């Protein structure tokens, strides 16, 4: 085989710049890989820099091929494919790195720089966070600067090139913004975007066991954020309804499956419209205020027969949905098909909890409303404590143990016990999981896992399913003031929820506003929002004359802006008044076809003008002399004369 040793013709400094730019660009892709694999991909970079440093020839072709093939093989072994989002991106990174080994002249280097731009763009397949944007901007800056380095003849890469690249990026910003706003969006993703990996404790589960909400209270990560259209309801009525637990096995509550009939309802009071931005939780349920109504609710969202808002797809990435809700309502119970469901909601395990059962059965002769009141009075007797440190209820009768012995519990204990009592008393009841309250950050609400809460719903004749929160009678502060005020064992709460961490909490809220704005306006800018925005401008589709008008108008405005900036820069360079007069004269002469060559001095040019325009010969000499006097003899008094001569000049 013929071995081709390529001579390295590249100046060192821009080459090091290129190596650094590539390392920077590859880094986000390498974070996805095992350490040894990342090191292998970076190896050609270090090798190439070393070769340049020692002034050695590039490796022969067979070795370069072995390198590229080796890197490809590793990708295949690791990913079992060379295409697709993960394998493809790593393959790209590997080959970009290997390409450096055969980069021997300026042309190769420019190609590699363009590949580096592309690789930078691919970093958004790794993450679309605000930080990634900032990082890719730095990458783009470095690539652009070192691309400038190849244009220089002196083989240097001074810092001024970085400044120049920065200016170029700034100049490109308006165009980028325009494209961001108007570029047509695809309604579905081209490929699956990366999901932020949901952790084990990332929210509610489809089963409620004792202690599950206590764990959530210790997790201060954001569950979702809400924007209200108009005035939000009071904080104590912000019950964000999640999964509905109907099946009870004596210890755990689970969601029931199988559809039942949706009760017909009559809304009382105002409808609230709001947009929920949900962090991925790998479940399909959404979180809406009490009773979600079709109202402004978008397609892709379904309201189940248990009055839950659910997404048609599992929420694996951050999701924005607009929902409508009412907080007070009346349900008709004339629907016979509903009876089946109501019966299910009175079922209890045959055995266990004899004392609780006896207590509730004693209320059977009362009206349903009175049974409810009796249960709440029992729980609100002051003997119960709301605590994060509830003892484990391990015995066969957990409800009895809670109600008559330990009397310490968290929301899920009280919700569970209360529903048990209601069912035992013959009132249909179920447990609802969700979140209570939240924290207003300026104009939006942040709801954290800490706000997770469990409450109950009971079916009252004439009213239907109504929300009852037993925790509210045990610890009224939980509803009105939040968890930190009302719970015992609050020192176990996350630092940010404790009251002496106010400044930290404030800083975090401010940062949360930034991240939320990013998610809302950049990541969440999809087809629907684009159409919505265009709708506000009166544009219905992309072929309407109005759209063309807006587009060309904006483009024209941008061009005018650039022109104005360029003009301002030019006039700054020639602030010299004499120079301005001279330029004015040159413009007049340009119409006559008389243009000075770049190196033509003022005297020579004035003489040439005098020869070409004999009628203006005197004026030309006078202008030349006055200009030279002001500019080269530094006689400012000649400026007036220059101005006079130029103003009086009439070519022809």
């Amino acid at each position: 085989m013929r071995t081709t040793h390529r001579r390295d013709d590249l100046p060192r400094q821009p080459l090091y710049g290129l190596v650094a730019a590539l390392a920077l660009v590859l880094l986000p892709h390498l974070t996805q890989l095992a350490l040894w694999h990342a090191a292998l991909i970076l190896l050609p970079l270090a090798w190439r820099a070393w070769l340049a440093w020692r002034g050695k020839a590039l490796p022969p072709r067979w070795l370069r091929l072995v390198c590229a093939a080796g890197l490809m093989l590793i990708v295949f072994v690791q990913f079992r494919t060379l295409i697709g989002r993960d394998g493809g991106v790593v393959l790209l990174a590997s080959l970009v790195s290997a390409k450096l080994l055969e980069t021997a002249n300026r042309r190769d280097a420019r190609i590699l720089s363009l590949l580096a731009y592309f690789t930078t763009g691919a970093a958004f397949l790794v993450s679309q966070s605000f930080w990634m944007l900032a990082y890719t901007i730095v990458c783009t800056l470095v690539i652009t600067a070192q691309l400038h380095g190849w244009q220089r003849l002196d083989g240097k890469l001074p810092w001024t090139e970085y400044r120049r690249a920065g200016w170029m990026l700034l100049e490109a910003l308006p165009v980028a913004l325009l494209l961001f706003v108007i570029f047509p969006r695809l309604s579905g993703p081209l490929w699956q975007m990366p999901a932020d990996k949901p952790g084990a404790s990332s929210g509610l589960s489809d089963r409620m066991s004792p202690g599950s909400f206590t764990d959530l209270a210790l997790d201060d990560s954001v569950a979702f954020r809400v924007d209200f259209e108009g005035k939000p309801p009071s904080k104590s009525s912000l019950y964000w309804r999640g999964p509905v637990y109907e099946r009870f096995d004596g210890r755990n509550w689970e969601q029931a499956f199988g559809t039942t009939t949706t009760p017909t309802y009559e809304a009382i009071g105002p409808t609230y419209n709001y947009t929920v931005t949900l962090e991925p939780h790998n479940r399909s349920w959404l979180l809406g205020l009490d009773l979600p109504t079709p109202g402004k609710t978008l397609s892709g969202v379904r309201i189940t027969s248990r009055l839950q808002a659910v997404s048609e797809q599992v929420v694996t990435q951050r999701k924005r949905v607009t929902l409508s809700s009412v907080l007070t309502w009346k349900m008709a119970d004339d629907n016979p098909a509903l009876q089946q469901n109501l019966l299910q909601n009175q079922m209890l395990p045959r055995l266990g909890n004899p004392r609780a059962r006896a207590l509730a059965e004693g209320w059977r002769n009362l009206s349903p409303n009175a049974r409810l009141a009796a249960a709440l009075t029992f729980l609100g007797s002051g003997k119960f404590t709301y605590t994060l440190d509830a003892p484990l209820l391990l015995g066969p009768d957990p409800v009895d143990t809670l109600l008559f012995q330990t009397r310490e519990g968290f929301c899920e204990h009280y919700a569970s016990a209360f529903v048990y009592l209601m069912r035992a008393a013959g009132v249909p009841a179920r447990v609802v999981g969700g979140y209570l309250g939240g924290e207003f950050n300026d104009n939006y609400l942040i709801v954290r896992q800490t706000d997770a809460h469990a409450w109950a719903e009971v079916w009252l004749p004439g009213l239907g399913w109504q929300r009852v929160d037993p925790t509210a009678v045990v610890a009224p502060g939980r509803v009105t003031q939040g968890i930190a005020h009302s719970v015992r064992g609050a020192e176990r709460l996350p630092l940010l929820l404790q009251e002496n961490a106010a400044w930290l909490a404030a800083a975090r809220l401010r940062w949360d506003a930034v991240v939320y704005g990013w998610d809302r306006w950049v990541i969440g800018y999809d087809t629907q929002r684009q159409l919505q925005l265009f709708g506000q401008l009166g544009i219905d589709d992309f072929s309407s004359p109005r759209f063309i008008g807006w587009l060309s108008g904006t483009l024209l405005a941008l061009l005018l802006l650039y022109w104005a900036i360029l003009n301002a820069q030019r006039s700054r360079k020639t602030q010299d008044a004499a120079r301005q007069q001279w330029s004015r004269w040159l413009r007049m002469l340009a119409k006559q076809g008389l243009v000075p060559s770049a190196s033509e001095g003022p005297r020579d040019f004035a003489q040439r003008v005098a020869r070409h325009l004999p009628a203006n010969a005197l004026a030309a000499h006078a202008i030349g002399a006055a200009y030279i006097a002001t500019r080269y003899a530094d006689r400012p008094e000649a400026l007036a004369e220059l101005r006079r001569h130029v103003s009086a000049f009439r070519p022809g």
Partner: protein
Amino acid sequence: MPHPLNSTLDQLNQIILGKETQIRLAVACLLARGHLLLEDLPGVGKTTLAHALAAGLGLKFQRVQFTSDLLPADLLGVSIYERNSNEFRFHHGPVFTQVLLGDEINRAPPKTQSALLEAMEERQVTIDGTTYPLPEPFFVIATQNPQTQIGTFPLPESQLDRFLMRLELGYPDAQAERAMLAGADRRSLIAQLGNDIDPATLPKAQAEVAALHVSGALLDYIQALAAATRSHADLAYGLSPRALLGLVNAARAWAWLDDRDYVIPEDVQAVFACVAGHRLPSRSSGRPDPRTAVELLQAVAVP
């Protein structure tokens, strides 16, 4: 008011015919207190020009033919023990003059070349620990044969940089050559030169040149030219700061000869090729290429 050297220029033009520009440049070089390198084939009038220049300005003139065995002492002088007075006495060499014509400087060995060049830069000579100042003005006109000829020691770049200007005379045009052939002997014409010139004229003119006004706009131009030489692809390196100083002074002298008390870009353009040409060695050939300076001049815009 026409400057007092006008008549001198006219007289020089009578002796060396058809070389007005070169003569003017040579005089400008002298006015800018710079040394002159003439590079051309033998017999085109280099020596005559040097001789006429000295005579026309009323300066003392010495000529040294550089050969491969010329020693520094032959040029600078030597201390000799005198039996009568029992002491060493310094015998001044030919360098102690106002105009020194160093003929075929590139035939001398580097040691002698450097002795001369040191005298040019310092305007003094140090021998055996004693420093002897050179006369004022001191002006070296060196001639050099084209370096393709055999038996030459080309001047290194550092020494070329000491010459303010490098000129080529070239063949005279047909008409001038005819007039020369028909006219009187050049040597006898030179002998008649300079009898009417006041010895104070040249120092006064040099002082006026040095004081000539240079505006910021002009310095912008000079710096733009310098930047262009420094980033030029085919140039191993650009103009040195010393070269730029020389360029400014030469442009001043040119403006002075034009009866102006300020410098305009045209002055810079007039002297640029002969000031910069020999200081810009081409990367590809290693030798200065006179065309590069002209190209640069055309490429750089007058600000």
